[in-house]
């Protein structure tokens, strides 16, 4: 009987969730989008995904061996980083771009800052931002026509949409992902399936994607048309570009998103606003990467100002002040 009495400090409520379990769920949720990428953009997509994942895991292992840190490649977080990075790349990029991007993401964005849990931005997006700044021509011109697998060097449908507020694509094409774009961003159905799976498994909070996509849809509706306000094609604005992929799978990263529910809603809305600003008035066609990275940086600020009320504390500010003797 005495053996079973365990005396420990708080917390006493534990959960069966593990890093590995959560990361496995994310990998599972990205499988439909990855398959869609291979179907839509050809077998080369698989090569890009494999190169990215393998180099991400290898970079983590080599760094941790080199600096004599505990090996954490079994928690799958490097796998998720590699997979997410690959899904944000154009289908025709040279194969060394995902490799360099993954190594940058793991070593510089994540491990140097202390590894999983202490990285200040989403590693996959940091890797993408780096390769985008380093080789902008590859990252903005290596597109492929869907199902035809022909090289397509030109503006993506999103770039055209930002200028005119119109797109030639039908809703069916948009939902199935039959358009030029990054590997994993086009097939909306696959992304939604993965996102809903994650929300159902309680891995991610719905507030971030809903806040993000809601703001983006509202903003595109109001400002998205050159003809006047409240005339924008908000459905296309939502489905073109990487907002669905980013909002479900990247903005929801635990380490770099706020801890409170209201804070998460704030982060979603903020990312939506920044995306809109970049798309409508910025010089880049797409702003999801920078929007999420920006909100990653703002996250500590959100967590500082949006604090849940202590249980048992007086809700009334006046009462609280009185209770603490007027101390601020």
């Amino acid at each position, binding site marked *: 009987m005495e053996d079973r009495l365990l005396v420990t400090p708080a917390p006493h409520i534990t959960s069966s969730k593990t890093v590995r379990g959560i990361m496995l769920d994310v990998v599972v949720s990205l499988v439909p989008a990855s398959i869609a990428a291979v179907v839509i953009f050809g077998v080369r997509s698989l090569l890009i995904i494999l190169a990215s994942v393998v180099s991400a895991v290898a970079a983590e292992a080599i760094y941790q061996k080199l600096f004599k840190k505990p090996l954490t490649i079994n928690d799958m977080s490097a796998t998720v980083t590699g997979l997410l990075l690959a899904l944000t790349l154009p289908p025709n990029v040279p194969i060394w771009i995902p490799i360099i991007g993954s190594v940058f993401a793991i070593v510089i964005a994540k491990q140097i800052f202390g590894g999983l849990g202490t990285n200040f931005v989403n590693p996959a997006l940091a890797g993408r931002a780096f390769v985008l700044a380093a*080789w902008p021509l590859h990252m903005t011109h290596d597109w492929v026509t869907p199902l035809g697998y022909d090289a397509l060097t030109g503006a993506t449908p999103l770039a055209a949409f930002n200028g005119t507020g119109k797109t030639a694509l039908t809703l069916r094409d948009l939902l199935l992902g039959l358009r030029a774009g990054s590997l994993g961003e086009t097939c909306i159905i696959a992304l939604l399936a993965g996102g809903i799976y994650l929300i159902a498994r309680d891995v991610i909070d719905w507030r971030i994607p809903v806040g993000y996509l809601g703001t983006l849809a509202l903003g595109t509706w109001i400002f998205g048309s050159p003809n006047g306000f409240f005339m924008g094609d908000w459905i296309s604005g939502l489905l073109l570009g990487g907002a669905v992929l980013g909002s479900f799978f990247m903005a929801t990263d635990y380490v770099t998103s706020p801890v409170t529910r209201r804070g998460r809603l704030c982060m979603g809305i903020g990312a939506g606003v920044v995306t809109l600003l970049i798309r409508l008035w910025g010089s880049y066609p797409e702003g999801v990467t920078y929007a999420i990275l920006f909100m990653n940086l703002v996250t500590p600020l959100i967590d500082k100002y949006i604090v849940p009320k202590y249980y048992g504390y007086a809700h009334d500010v006046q009462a609280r002040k009185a209770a603490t003797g007027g101390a601020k």
Partner: protein
Amino acid sequence: MSEPRRSLGFDFIKGFIQENPTFALAIGMCPTLAVTTSVENGFWMGMAVVFVLTFSNVFVSLLRRFIPDAIRIPIFVILIATPVVIVELVMKAYLPAIYEVMGIFVPLIVVNCIIIARAEAFAYRYPVMNSLMDGLGIGAAYTVNLMVIGGVREFLGTGQIALGSIVFPSAPFFEPAAVMLTPPGGFITLGLLMVLFRVTLGSKAKVEDHSKTS
């Protein structure tokens, strides 16, 4: 004012490791990031700083008994601004191409914290010869730092390194990463080199370890 006899050799050499301005003391960061897009730019910026630093160190040290404590900073500024104007005019006259690249950062040497830091922390307290060696040493180390940072950025950003008319390799053998020539590339290079410096030589340097103070 106590003036212990210090070895002139040590005063020269300490700038490279123990008091390395960029990697150990982390001062003078503005030109370090701004003009180090090539080895050559780093070299000329470093040369300008060597001249200004040596000049101001020597004169601050010479005049240290006559400078009242309360107004020493304005006097330092005058002693620093003089060589800066000399450097600026000489560069404009004889190295117009380099001056074009450096632009505002040549006159801004006047507010480079390395120079005022050496005046305040060293030249104001030590004899002329020591201050001379300190200026030359810190300046030389700063030049080496700028050239190393410039070399890394130039090589990765253009695929080549140009030293005068010699360009190596003659054609880049990989696709250059444009980001390395931009400010983010400067920050990344500086950060990684600083990590490298502190991992390898950090035990010898006067590195401020903020992780150990509360």
